[in-house]
């Protein structure tokens, strides 16, 4: 059973477009904070903050060797398409159930 608080942290982490971009970028390969800062046209401090949020959500891990901090995906993998679809389905099903319930109770 997943913990709601834990999921909430992950959702908070991926609600930001830059952080989704970072995850996508890291999906293509590991990158240092400064490389990420450069590709997203951000300051090192700004990028460190974003990576920190992703790290707290365990979507990203970092490892410092010398002066370079390398970021990579994991240990927790963002939900794959199947999991997104499953949740999307649950939302739509809930919506349609409520539509049906409304039409049922307003029947003439």
């Amino acid at each position, binding site marked *: 059973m997943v913990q709601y608080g834990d999921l909430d942290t992950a959702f908070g982490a991926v*609600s930001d477009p830059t952080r989704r971009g970072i995850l996508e970028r890291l999906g293509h390969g590991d990158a240092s904070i400064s490389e990420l800062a450069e590709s997203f046209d951000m300051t090192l401090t700004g990028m460190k903050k974003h990576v920190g949020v992703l790290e707290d959500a365990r979507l990203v891990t970092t490892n410092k060797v010398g002066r370079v901090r390398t970021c990579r995906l994991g240990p927790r993998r963002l939900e794959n398409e199947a999991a997104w679809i499953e*949740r999307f*389905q649950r939302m739509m099903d809930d919506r*349609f*159930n409520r539509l049906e319930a409304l039409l*049922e109770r307003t029947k003439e």
Partner: protein
Amino acid sequence: MTQTLMRTTITTPTDREIRIERIVNAPRDRVWRAYTEPALIAQWWGRGNKLVIERMEPVRGGHWRYVEHGPNGVYGFEGRYREVSAPTRFVRSFEWDGMPAHVAIETVTMEDLGDGRTQVVITMQMHTPEERDGFLQSGMQGGMDAAFAALDRLVEEE
């Protein structure tokens, strides 16, 4: 928690599309009204969350905007109508505040099954696979809101 069988089908015919199908146990005219009359939309589209219908002009060129007040935040959905053919079909643009200017085209068709039921088919057409995934994730957010609400109800019952 009780796991009930879901009656809504979701498929992804292409990497830029989401297709949603559901048979609704009500006649087509009433389903159409529930989709186009603000007072009715507000009662179901938000899945139990407060939903404010800020604009609803279901005519070609008309605007729509719904604002959902979920337990984890307030977010809007909006767009314009491209085509409205009552009571069978409408096509509108669809944007979520969480992904501004990533515009999907939503096509909703309603087929009268002749036995008092209506088949509703929704297709969401996106420009890119990334947008498609983003929309699925917005569903994830919504799904979580519903889950939280369910959790709250459980907690209240105890």
